[in-house]
């Protein structure tokens, strides 16, 4: 009797585990299939317009003289902020290249994770811009 229960529990556990695996796979597939070229294009153009344009304009102000801060009368770019913007953009660019490569090749393995990573680095970049008045 005990042996039979154990077999039943083992079967139930295996069934649940397998169901969990199938569910996870199904969710991954669903998420991956919703990340299309159009999804990428929307995010991409949004990033270029909302981050790269103001970041370029900020950089074009010219660096502040050492020991000075930007003012309305004499706007200038803080070297430290520019470096942060450059590094953040480099991370976003690498993530875009990765996601675009997966979409183009039809490789859905890891696409959801890569897309999540892309969203995270974009949010970090936009956070740096917002925190430093780059808009």
């Amino acid at each position, binding site marked *: 009797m005990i042996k039979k229960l154990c077999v039943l529990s083992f079967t139930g556990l295996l069934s649940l585990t397998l169901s969990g695996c199938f569910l996870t796979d199904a969710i991954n597939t669903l998420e991956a299939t919703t990340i299309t070229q*159009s999804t990428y*294009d929307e995010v991409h153009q949004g990033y270029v317009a909302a981050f790269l344009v103001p970041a370029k304009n900020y*950089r074009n102000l010219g660096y*502040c*003289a050492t020991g000075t801060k930007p003012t309305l009368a004499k706007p*200038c770019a803080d070297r430290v902020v520019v470096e942060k913007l450059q590094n953040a953009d480099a991370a976003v660019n690498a993530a875009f290249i990765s996601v675009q490569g997966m979409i183009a090749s039809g490789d859905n393995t890891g696409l959801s994770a890569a897309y999540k990573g892309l969203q995270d680095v974009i949010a970090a970049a936009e956070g740096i811009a917002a925190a430093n008045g780059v808009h």
Partner: protein
Amino acid sequence: MDPATLIADAAAIATILSEVVTTIEDAAPFVKALYNLLVLKQPLTDDVRASLNAKEAELRAALNTASIPADRA
């Protein structure tokens, strides 16, 4: 209006106009892209994507340029 004021005003207007033109030039690829995505509800066409990618490369190069070393303040 004396000549000095006129020149100063003209310079100010020219500066503002150059800013506006720059903004329009920057915006053009995005307007096309948004039209594709939001109005046509289609992926970007090859020419629009190429235009957007070119603008992106231009902006990134400007962000990373070392050719504006002048201290402004």
